[in-house]
């Protein structure tokens, strides 16, 4: 077994990417993902990799796109305002069926917002990470260990379905230190990419990596083919974690950093005799609709906890087709909810402590 080491979330993301065979990193400085890029700058030259600081977030995502088009595992990392700039490149990569990893260590928005942890980019990540009919894979880790574990999985899944993947973290996860065991799982070389534009060596027809389809029927067919793939992904790649859900009547739904707080509140509620439970989506797209719908059978009410004004809460309502009341509790702008506040919300739903 590999040894456990104490690492910051941002550094664990970086080292996990290297372990997953990603040797091309293109980025632009932004808080609170700083340690990730700094780690890459330090490590990449020692292992024959590339750390390149681009002139802009837009350039960085397009460098990733170039590397991905050439068939090489590549990534970028940023935080909320920077991700907004990257949406152009993300859309083009979806349109050209290119796999890559984008990390968003979220901070408060809109605009320049703040630099404290936030989860207010949920809508952007899951609904509109770029213009057009598209989805990207969105993974939401809730610990440093899970940050490390999801990086390799995100790369592999992106390669498998030829689409970008995002790790939606936040400033709290990025900055905190926890023991982590890094697993070496370099599947980069195993990926066959016969579509890549990397020189045909006079052995095949030329490859074209492109997102332009001027004939409307061709574009529609291409998008429909992609949505068939999205359906397969929804059936096979959805991930979520459940805590004390066996007989839960009051179901809390939370992801990432806020799920840690929600978990503490659920544990406390159980101590107080309330049948509370937690569903923690690990993939935000695809969203674990079926698991949440299944929970509605026993549930009397749902509570969504987020570090935003309430974004995922809409998806919870849709997942259960509004068959139960769904309330929301959260803080935004960089304020982290307190377990006692969440407990109070659970108690409110259940009609007070038992």
């Amino acid at each position, binding site marked *: 077994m590999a040894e456990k080491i104490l690492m910051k979330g941002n550094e664990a993301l970086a080292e996990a990417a290297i372990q997953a065979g990603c040797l091309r990193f293109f980025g632009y400085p932004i808080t609170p993902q700083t340690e990730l890029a700094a780690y890459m700058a330090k490590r990449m030259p020692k292992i024959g990799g590339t750390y390149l600081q681009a002139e802009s977030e837009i*350039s960085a995502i397009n460098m990733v796109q*170039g*590397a991905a088009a050439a068939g090489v595992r590549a990534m970028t990392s940023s935080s909320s305002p920077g991700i907004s700039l990257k949406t152009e490149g993300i859309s083009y990569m979806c349109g050209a069926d290119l796999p890559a990893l984008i990390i968003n260590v979220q901070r408060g928005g809109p605009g320049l917002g703040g630099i404290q942890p936030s989860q207010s980019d949920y809508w952007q990540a899951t609904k509109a990470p770029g213009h057009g009919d598209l989805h990207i894979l969105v993974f939401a880790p809730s610990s440093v260990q899970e940050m490390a574990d999801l990086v390799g999985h995100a790369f592999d899944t992106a390669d498998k379905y030829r689409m970008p993947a995002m790790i939606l973290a936040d400033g709290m996860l990025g900055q905190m230190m926890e023991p982590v065991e890094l697993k070496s799982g370099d599947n980069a070389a195993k990926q066959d990419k016969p579509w890549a534009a*990397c*020189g045909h060596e006079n*052995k095949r027809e030329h490859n074209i*990596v492109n997102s332009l389809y001027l004939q409307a029927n061709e574009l529609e067919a291409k998008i429909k083919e992609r949505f068939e793939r999205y359906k397969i992904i929804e059936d096979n790649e959805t991930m979520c974690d459940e805590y004390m859900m066996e007989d839960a009547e009051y179901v809390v739904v939370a992801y990432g950093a806020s799920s840690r707080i929600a978990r503490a509140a659920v544990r406390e509620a159980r101590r107080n005799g309330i049948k509370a439970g937690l569903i923690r989506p690990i993939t935000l797209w695809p969203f674990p609709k079926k698991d949440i719908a299944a929970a509605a059978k026993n549930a009397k009410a749902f509570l969504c906890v987020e570090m935003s004004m309430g974004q995922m809460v809409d998806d919870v309502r849709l997942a259960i087709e509004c068959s139960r009341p769904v309330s929301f509790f959260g803080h935004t702008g960089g304020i982290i909810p307190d377990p006692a506040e969440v407990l109070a919300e659970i108690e409110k739903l259940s009609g007070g402590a038992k």
Partner: protein
Amino acid sequence: MAVVFKRPHALLDVPNTYCPGCTHGIIHRLVAECIDELGIEGRTVGVAPVGCAVMAYNFFGCDMIQAPHGRAPAIATGVKRSKPDDIVFAYQGDGDLAAIGTAETVHAATRGENITVIFVNNAIYGMTGGQMAPTSLPGQVTQTTPYGRDVSIAGYPIKVCEMLSTLEGTEYAERVTVDCVKNVNKAKKAIKKAFQNQLDGKGFNIVEVVSSCPTNWGLAPNDALEWLRNNMLAYYPLGVYKDKSAEKGAEK
């Protein structure tokens, strides 16, 4: 019978999408001839822009990538850094390179990114129907400067070769045109050098080709070339703006 003239292998035998009299066709041919002569088609990756040359990916025989508007140098950087043995070129127009992609261009140059950029400057946005370009001349009438480009409102045209030649990372910057046989030959020599420099690992190479747009200039092809000679070349003088290796050699 001896064949004395044929289509370059790197230029595919497909109809192109350019207007009659447009100089893109000549420039495509020159690029393809250089790829053939250097024997690099199998390891060349071209990056197409957004603009009239957007479908260049259908015309060149090497592997091709279509870039977002202005981002071709960043895409080319991603390819080159991932596959250093590949020969990477970006083919861009003036709106793509000198307006929306100015940052990508300047920084690829200043990094000394070992790529080749073919910059087609026809002083207008052709694909979208003739709007003012960053290189439109003072007084030039376009769809969005219907009274002529007023520099007090729209500012001045950018001289790309002059600007990039100030950067340390730029190895080679030359401005050519393709208005006559003599100049076509000169243009080819420049393009070939811009590829050879990349093969030699010298840094950032740009060849600006002053071009015509008969359709959006509203001129017959020959009249367009005449307008190019009389107006464009006065503002954009032809010549070598930077040749770092040659300059170093001369200092010795």
